[in-house]
């Protein structure tokens, strides 16, 4: 409820423009901001969210970037306060690996199944049913002509 109210009243809250930083640093801050979750929003990053909380967090990212902190250090700063929850992308370590690895395992297994069902030898190709297409005959005709020429 409180969060809702905070979100609700966001429009009343003033915005404070952060200290201007160089475009390179701003770009870096934006990239990192995209990976940090706004604490009061629902799933938006601090770089995207217009809420005041996100603006504060984004300002902090800018400061840390200006201090020369790396992405990992900035992530560590936020994780220390808000836990892993604050990262929009689970770190690829430990149990989290399942989200990063399983999709590839899935694709790999699928490819294996498809490969197993693909005839590799010339014999099998001959043995397979003739691929006589019931395509539109006109389409077939034109294809043949193109192929002959």
């Amino acid at each position, binding site marked *: *409820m*409180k*969060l809702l*109210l*905070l979100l609700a*009243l966001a429009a*009343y*809250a*003033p915005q*404070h423009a*952060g200290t201007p930083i160089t475009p390179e640093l701003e770009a870096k801050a934006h990239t990192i901001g995209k990976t940090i979750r706004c*604490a*009061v929003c*629902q799933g938006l990053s601090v770089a995207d969210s217009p809420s*005041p*909380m996100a*603006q*504060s*967090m984004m*300002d*902090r990212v800018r*400061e840390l970037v200006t201090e020369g902190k790396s992405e990992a250090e900035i992530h560590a700063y936020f*994780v*220390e*306060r*808000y*836990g892993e*929850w604050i990262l929009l992308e689970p770190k690829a370590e430990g149990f989290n690996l399942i989200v990063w690895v399983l999709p590839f395992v899935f694709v790999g297994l699928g490819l294996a199944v498809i490969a197993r069902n693909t005839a590799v030898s010339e014999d099998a190709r001959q043995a397979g049913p003739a691929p006589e297409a019931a395509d539109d005959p006109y389409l077939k005709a034109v294809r043949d002509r193109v192929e002959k020429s």
Partner: protein
Amino acid sequence: MKINWSLVITGLVLAAALAWVLGKGFGRDPHEVPFMLTGKPAPAFTLERLDGAKGEAKLADFAGKPLILNFWSTWCGPCKIEHPVIEWGFGKFGDRVQFVGVVYQDSRENVDAFLRESPPKYAMLFDENGRAAVDYGLAGVPETYFITKDGKIRYKHVGPLDPSRLTQEIRALLEDAPK
């Protein structure tokens, strides 16, 4: 009848896994924001004073006694409801515990107007761009930090406090009983 048991087992495993994972979700509050600083030293801050005392205040200025740090804003409805509760707490426990209000992300005019109406009884600081708030892992206003006399965050309360909760938390803070 021929039955493909591996399919049945796959289906059952899938159903059981779904039921387990989704069932675990019941009763969880998806909107709760984790707070990791409990038991950790309170982060230092340097903030402008709004309570008549000129200049800036640091966390170190409040060392030695338990501290209650209340983040609020004039644009936050529940904060205004909570405000008298904190003042009441200050009246009751102000001799044993320090009270500090931090105005979070607000416009100076609004804060000045509010504080003219009800002059602060305890230290009032201004966190204009939310720097201290992020350092403290704030996830909205009002939130109140209960900090022990040796500078550790004992508990963060999310949302407006009521008198009985405030009393309970202050007593626990004074005894410094393990949470």
